[in-house]
């Protein structure tokens, strides 16, 4: 059973089709990358999944049941892109308050908050106010408050912005650990290298529609362009080869195999030329390249349109 099934979700505003028929599924324990350019409809999509907005059309199935925000809120943790906490409230009180709003009893909330504060070495913050914290510290606190209720579904929108590498790693490890324990994580970011590192599954939305859906490796395979790097003893001039050279230096050659040939043909070519081959490796496109390729050509800012529906 999937943790979350989103089926034909639609949300139209007067000037924009913010989300236009998006479907996807999310398995327990998977880390799911939600990608898309600014204004693609990611936030609207997330707000519908968290129960903040109601979809105009479509269904959200949470743990096999039709999504009911009142009941299911308790199992969802949401860290929005625009992070915020009560600035004048004491940090310990605030964490307990937010956990209680997720349905935890005061005692359980207290216990969980203490557990996380010790884990993240935040005990000394208890009686401080949020305004006394640096931006990175606030981010850490925000992450803790998001996962206090042991959610089954965690939605993280740019969770690493403003964090130093040490704290980024700390949170990354926690994300892995939570996924290991069965939580499903939706991870929204513009940092493609983080997606490649963390996510196992991605979807890409643009102009309110899903334009790509698959595992990270599957997507890379799908968009591969038959580009290889080869390391040789010497680089003889190339004539009548089954490939074109894209780039070459003293250590390696980057080549693109011509239509109708395979990688073996490249090796055969060099074997015939009696050149020693040290390495041969396929270069898959980065998600960054795929993102730019797919989104390229769409205007930088989304245009307003008239919606008739």
């Amino acid at each position, binding site marked *: 059973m999937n943790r979350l099934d989103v089926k034909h979700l639609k949300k139209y505003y007067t000037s924009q089709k913010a989300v236009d028929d998006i479907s996807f599924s999310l398995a327990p324990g998977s880390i799911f990358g939600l990608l898309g350019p600014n204004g693609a409809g990611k936030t609207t999509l997330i707000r519908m999944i968290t129960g903040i907005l109601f979809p105009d059309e479509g269904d959200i199935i949470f743990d096999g049941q039709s999504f009911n925000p009142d009941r299911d809120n308790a199992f969802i943790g949401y*860290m*929005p892109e*625009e992070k*915020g906490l009560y600035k004048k409230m004491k940090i310990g009180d605030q964490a307990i308050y937010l956990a209680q709003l997720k349905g935890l009893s005061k005692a359980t909330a207290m216990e969980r908050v203490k557990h996380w504060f010790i884990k993240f070495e935040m005990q000394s913050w208890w009686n401080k106010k949020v305004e006394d914290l640096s931006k990175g510290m606030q981010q850490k606190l925000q992450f803790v408050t998001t996962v206090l209720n042991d959610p089954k579904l965690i939605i993280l929108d740019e969770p690493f912005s403003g964090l130093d590498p040490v704290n980024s790693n700390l949170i990354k490890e926690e994300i892995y650990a939570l996924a290991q324990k069965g939580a499903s994580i939706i991870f929204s970011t513009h940092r493609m290298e983080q997606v490649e590192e963390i996510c196992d599954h991605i979807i890409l939305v643009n102009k309110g529609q899903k334009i790509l859906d698959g595992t990270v490796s599957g997507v890379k395979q799908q968009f591969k362009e038959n580009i290889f790097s080869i390391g040789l003893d010497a680089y003889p001039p190339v004539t009548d080869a089954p490939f074109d050279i894209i780039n070459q230096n003293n250590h390696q050659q980057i080549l693109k195999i011509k239509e109708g040939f395979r990688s073996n043909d490249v090796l055969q070519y060099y074997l015939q030329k009696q050149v020693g081959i040290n390495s041969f490796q396929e270069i898959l496109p980065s998600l960054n390249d795929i993102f730019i390729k797919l989104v390229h050509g769409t205007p930088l800012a989304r245009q307003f349109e008239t919606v008739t529906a």
Partner: protein
Amino acid sequence: MKKILLVIQREYLVRVRKKSFLYTTILIPLVIMGFYAAIFAIGISGGSHEKNKIAVLDEAGLFTPAIENAKGDESTYVIITGQSLESLKGTYKSKGYDYILYIPPVDVTKDTKHIQLFSSSPLNVNQKSKVERTIDNAIENKRLQSANISREQYRSIQSDVSIENPVLNGKEEKKNVAFVAQGVSFICGLLIYIVMLIYGTMVMRGVMEEKISRIAEVMVSSVKPFQLMMGKIIGIGAVGLTQFTIWIALIATLRYALHIPGLDTAMMQQPDKVQGGALTAIISGGLGNLPWGLIISCFIFYFLGGYLLYASLFAAIGSVVSEDQSEAQQFVFPVMMPIILGFVIMTKAMADPNSPLVVFGSLFPLTSPVVMMGRIMYNVPVTQIIASMLLLVLGILFFTWLTAKIYRTGILMYGKKVTWKEMIRWAFRKS
């Protein structure tokens, strides 16, 4: 339901625990008490410290045989002879005089225009009127003399009426109600007006804080926007009630401790006509005759009703303004207008409690909390009170429903300037 209680609890505790809450709660009654102790002190002393020495150059013989000070005038008058006004002007200061009073050599019983009082700086009105009364007395004496009337005869001719206004309500005559009723009405209306403004804007600031600090989005992923809004409104309302309770208790204790009579006593004291003690007796008599059950129950009802009505409006305003504080002004003004209008109508209700405008104002939910308190003493028909209360309850339900929709959308809008048109569209959009 449990969540709304949590929100109420937080909103309440956060504010009550603030140092500023402590300060305002304790300082405001002290300031009020200090203020009215000062008024009272000034009233009692009656300018007794103003013992001026005045050089009198009486060229008309007005003050012959002697100067008789008017009641309350404690200046010392010294008749100067054999010196011209011009030379006196140069020397009066060094001789220890504060002013020069110059009576020109004309018949002052007929022509008083040229009497002058010279001083180095402008005199205060109080001091000037005292000197004027002394001169008036002297002129009156001259005129009485020439008309052959004695002072006693003159006094018996003068009239100074202060009429009583007993209220007939079928059962018993109630004395001294009108005058006290007016004071109590005004204070009740004023309090509700202040509550709506102070605590209403407190709600607005709270909502703005949530929006600006961007916690709103986290909150509404746990609680419904309506719960968040109502939790805040009720929590701040409870802060207001707490503050009022403490103020009333403090003022009562301070009054008891310092033996200072009511504020109204000090304000309305007119020492020439009524002695302080007599006035206090009138007020306490009047207070005893007021329909207190009606007043208190109406006050609590309109106090809470008015607050709830305006708090939801202020919450909606708070949700649509973004970081720019000054932007709030353009939205706040239209909400303040009916409150201020209500206050103006209430002051009219003091004079004419049954005029059509006042009746309308006491029924219309946006003004009724203030206006109805202003006319509650003047035998308002029961049907009107019930209608007014019913309309207020309906008004609260309607505006809460309307503003909750604006709030829900507004609180998640960032960096966009919201127009009135958009707000109205959100409010009436089907959900």
